[in-house]
């Protein structure tokens, strides 16, 4: 279990968590990168800026 850096909700973590893995917060949906595993540290994943092309 870790806390989402965006919305503060609890994020359940699976067992074989690996550093660098991306998961999304079920509350706010933000993509979180696993920075460290022991103890687990999450940060906002770098986002591919989606450009609508204008």
């Amino acid at each position: 279990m870790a806390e989402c850096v965006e919305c503060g909700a609890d994020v359940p973590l699976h067992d074989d968590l690996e550093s660098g893995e991306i998961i999304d917060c079920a509350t706010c949906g933000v993509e979180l990168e696993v920075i460290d595993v022991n103890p687990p540290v999450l940060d906002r994943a770098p986002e591919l800026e989606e450009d609508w092309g204008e």
Partner: protein
Amino acid sequence: MAAATEEQTAESVSALSTTVIGASGYTGGELLRLLSGHPNFEVAQATSREYANKTVGSVHPNLRGTGLRFSEPDDLDSVDVLFAATPHGVSMEHVDEFKESADTVVDLSADFRLETEAEYDEWYDGHVCPEYLDEAVYALPEIFREELPGAELIAAGGCNATATILGLYPLFDAGILSGSEQIVVDVKVGSSEGGASPSKASSHVERSGIVRPYAPTGHRHEAEIEAILDTSVSFTAHAVDMVRGASATSHVFPDSPVSKGDLWKAYRSCYEEEPFVRLVAGGSGVYRYPEPKAVAGTNNAEVGFELDPSNKRVVVFSAIDNLMKGSAGQAVHAANVALGFEETAGLEFQGLHPVGSP
């Protein structure tokens, strides 16, 4: 579906009989659909003047299975609950009949939403039974849950008002807004908001593909919003090319700086336990903020926000299905609360994906 136990219990205490007035209309049709799939209600009467004696399936093709036929509205049976889904002005003319024929009356029009005759006169055309205004409870359970149990006259909110109020309410509740700030509300709505009577502007030809300012200023739902949130709003509504859906974008400027964390706290504290509100603010994928099509056909509201650091603006998005959370669904939800049923009874449909423009 954990509902099986409640459903069974419900059926054993036998369903309440209901009348739907205005059942050939859009919200009336939704009421028929919801009530006939509801474990605690059964439809005894569905009125229509134009289609009296015809099957409800001849108007609402999704209800073709049922044998139910429309009856005239001037010939009301005694029932437990009556839902009125008529244009504003009709219910207030008939409210005494309605109350005589049913213990609980839920009205979907604007007739009993405001608190005073003066307010009604300002935004509408003169009230014939202002004495009921005080008694009536505004339906929206997220705000009026405590006042609903036992209510005998319930007024379901306006669709655009509901969308706007659900979006802004947590900011007031958390003290982020006080009521003195500038609030711009820019709303986009689907064609079913206009009801079932045809007109030139609402023909497929003229209404397809539009972004049409239909209420640049002075929309009547301002009255409800301002009454409930105790603030004034700058409200503009646009018609866009969808059938169901109301989407409110509120641009607000809190006096003190707020963080994303403050906002999440405010919204989670109001809505985390709410069965029909989903917070959608950022995230990944195609659906990152509230959208009407993600809630179409359901009683859900999506609410979300974004922070504009450059100028201290908070943008709040809220999306509902105008015929569900914006009227018939809200009415059934409120009736569930008023009558002590499971809140989500009859309202479990989760919507579709993929989906076009429902």
